[in-house]
């Protein structure tokens, strides 16, 4: 039985205007997320993962960027909507939460008012009803003493609490899709575990499709069912999380995994991917990872399409020939 996709992104490109002309930050990104599924998008800085999320939400700076491709949610292509239509959809059908809870909330308004504002932006309800709902949603996201906390200002709350408020704002209108851009990167590890647990629970209970963007493979391993690895603006690998960790097919994914320090590998030299991400203005014409890849050959000088192989996808011409190390040492 095929589950209808809650979000389907096809051939997404995103471009920025810079002093050197137009550069492409995201190229040909496609993925789907089903209801109730948590999909990971993993990459380091410069991978384009955040730009992808902002492009889907239509939050890239208007005069300085453009997008092409499609992002269909709730039967509508978000990229084709007018600004007025987009305003109705954001926060209602598709929501986004961001990385820095310290700066993401308006410091001059009480958190209750910020939640009420979201509710009333999308539904015609009385202020009273919205206020009650605000208290309930704060309870749902695990804020103690919600009835009192509703009157607090953001600066009176800890980072973990603020992130919960962000989640509350994002889910209060019961969106079908939630994009979480590094939601726990700035938080302590114990708080991170709680927030990730909260996201998983909400996804289960409400059937929300979640796109979890992160640089942390551990977070992906424990929270996501499928993962997309992004490098230099492209998706280079897409598969189930266990597959990615046991048998990565792309050298970059494998390199990332090898670079993670773990207590079991104490003091052993970690694999450090040499080189740097090429600047947007001078991307290689062929495989974008080739300058840093230890398996590079002549065939890598050609542009690499995303190849499908048994339920997985990988952007590497040599994937069938390579046996790349994963997170588990093969016996």
């Amino acid at each position, binding site marked *: 039985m095929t589950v209808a996709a809650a979000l389907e992104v096809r051939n997404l490109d995103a471009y920025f205007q810079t002093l050197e002309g137009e550069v492409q930050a995201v190229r040909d990104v496609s993925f789907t997320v089903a209801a109730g599924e948590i999909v990971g998008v993993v990459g380091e800085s410069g991978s384009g993962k955040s730009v992808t999320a902002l492009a889907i939400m239509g939050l890239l700076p208007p005069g300085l960027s453009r997008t092409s491709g499609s992002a269909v949610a709730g039967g509508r292509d978000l990229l084709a909507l007018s600004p007025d239509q987009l305003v109705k959809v954001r926060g209602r059908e598709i929501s986004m939460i961001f990385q820095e809870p310290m700066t993401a909330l308006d410091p001059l308004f009480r958190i209750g008012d910020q939640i009420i504002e979201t509710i009333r932006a999308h539904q015609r309800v009385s202020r009273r009803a919205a206020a009650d709902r605000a208290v309930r949603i704060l309870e749902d996201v695990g804020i103690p003493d919600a009835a009192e906390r509703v009157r607090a200002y953001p600066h009176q709350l800890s980072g973990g609490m603020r992130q919960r408020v962000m989640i509350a704002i994002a889910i209060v209108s019961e969106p079908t899709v939630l994009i979480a851009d590094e939601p726990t990167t700035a938080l*302590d590890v114990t708080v991170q575990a709680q927030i990730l*647990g909260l996201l998983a629970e909400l996804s289960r209970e409400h059937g929300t499709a979640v796109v979890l963007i992160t640089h942390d493979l551990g977070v992906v391993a424990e929270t996501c069912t499928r993962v997309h690895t992004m490098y230099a603006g492209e998706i280079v690998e897409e598969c189930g999380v266990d597959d990615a960790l*046991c048998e990565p097919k792309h050298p970059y994914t494998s390199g990332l995994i090898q670079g993670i320090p773990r207590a079991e590998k104490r003091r052993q030299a970690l*694999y450090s*991917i040499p080189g740097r991400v090429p600047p947007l203005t001078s991307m290689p014409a062929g495989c974008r990872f080739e300058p840093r890849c230890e398996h590079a050959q002549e065939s890598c000088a050609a542009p690499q399409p995303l190849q499908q192989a048994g339920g997985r996808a990988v952007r590497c011409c040599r994937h069938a020939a390579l046996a790349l190390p994963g997170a*588990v040492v093969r016996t």
Partner: protein
Amino acid sequence: MSAVAADDMPVRSSGPLLSASGLEVDFKLPGTGAPLRAVDGVSFEIGRSEIFGLIGESGSGKSTIARAIMRLTPITSGEVMLGGTRFDRLRGRELRRQRRRVQMVFQDPHEALDPRMTVRQAIEEPLRAGNRDSRAGLRDRVIDLLHRVDLDDSYLERKPHTMSGGQKQRVNIARALALEPELLVCDEAVSALDVSVRAGIINLLIGLQRDLEISVLFISHDLGVVAHLADRIGVLYLGRLAEVAPTESLTARPRHPYAEALLAAEPEPKPSTHRAPRPPVIKGEAPSAAKPPSGCRFRTRCRYAQKLCAQEEPPLRRVDHDTLVACHFAEELKLTGRRA
């Protein structure tokens, strides 16, 4: 106290290099002026050629300890001994002389570098003061240091804005090594770097310990990184040490509930088939350091808390020959760690 030998590293036990006893650091809260005790009676030792990891979440006081040791923040009470010298009491010229022995690398590689200085100038700067080397001699020293951090000569005349985060951090480390310190204090030195870049810096630090026999105080909130690097680890909670143990015993068998909670919360990049069952995620958040709970500070979040925990603060005491724990029930509790 000699460090437990981890693998191939023989460690000299000629007395600890750094010894902190009863460190207390107080701050005044802005506005009310009420006192905040950020560090409350912390004692630990770092041996020669040892990497000591200090782990804690926000509000634990780990950065404050780093700054206190570096004499960047005044100590309210307690002692810091460097070699045989009372480091916290030094002043003036004596302080300046002894200061060379401890150098620091900070979290933000970018902020630590003057954007108008070239790499050569940045590394030369600490060497210049009171140095009678010739110009060429100085340059040779700088090149030497660059090689030590795996950067080649081409970096000499480059400016920070042309370099990546990892490269900048290497320059920071080179600069810190210029005065040949005995102890390198790294305060979240890799936290701002990408994952693949971190690996390089971690390898570098391990190499430095091996080649220069330098000690490192590695402060971080990232247990994975600390567990990889450190010979011994101290776990901080709300200004006090909860546990101090050799890395392998801490990760395999923690003795303090907070250490267990940290290990449980740390996400493992392993497939579901290889993940061991873990205790449930800890609840709540750390209380404010201004008003710590009575008795054991961790009791409000501890799964194993008993009445005694609210009444008496557990002292940091020795259990097993190489582990210190601050828990009344350290002997009874069977806590879950991470197996290889």
